[in-house]
């Protein structure tokens, strides 16, 4: 009888420890983090997500209007500033990051 009580007591302690461990683990992992509140991503992760979006990009690029080539783009920022001083006009700058995996690095 005494042995059975000790066995049951040990089992109860084990189950309590297990439950306690589960509770701590859940508390530490917290609820699922929404995408928009996710911590900052590494460049590798960013590139991976861009790669996933590439099909969407290519779909848009396929139908892209290429009229932008009619704009009289200056060859460099320095050249644009010099021209702007000569003709007394402001400089309009398209700033973009080099896109990964596309033929046209300026497409954005």
């Amino acid at each position: 009888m005494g042995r059975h009580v000790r066995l049951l007591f040990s089992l109860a302690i084990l189950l309590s420890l297990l439950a306690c461990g589960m509770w701590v683990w859940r508390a530490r992992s917290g609820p699922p983090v929404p995408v928009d509140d996710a911590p900052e991503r590494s460049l590798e992760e960013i590139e991976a997500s861009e790669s996933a979006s590439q099909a969407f990009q290519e779909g848009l690029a396929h139908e892209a209007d290429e009229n932008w080539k009619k704009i009289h783009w200056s060859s460099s920022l320095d050249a644009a500033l010099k021209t702007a001083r000569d003709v007394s006009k402001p400089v309009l700058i398209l700033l973009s990051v080099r896109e990964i995996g596309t033929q046209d690095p300026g497409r954005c």
Partner: protein
Amino acid sequence: MLKSSLLSDEKNIETINRDFVPVNFLIEKGFPLDVPVPALTPVREAFLSQPDFRGFFATVVVIDPTGTLLLAYTGRSYPPNYKPTGCYRDGRFLTNIQRGLERFRKAQAIQADSKLSAEQKDAQLAELQKDVRASVGVLKTLKMEIETP
């Protein structure tokens, strides 16, 4: 999708070619500038403040020919949905760059005004750029999230 949308719009192209000197500047790692352009400092700081921008960032800004005055910022385009967002709607884009042109003309008038002291000119030029710089500053606190176009 700036090039295939707003920068391919005939009305925008006509305005850009007539009133501005356009240039495409590709941002390399660290946003180095070959020539000193203080007007781009707020944009550079905002860009570097968000690691996600290294993967996706596109915007159009207007500066004066000396490279010191930031005269217009048109918003930015970024994923995850790749759709033009914020100011990247046709009317607002054109309005923004036209405001840049107006600010340029005001800046010219301020600089040419012989009645103003150097300090007064600096103060008026700072006031002229205040709203634009504030808009760019918002980029630093931006959360990367899907926006409703």
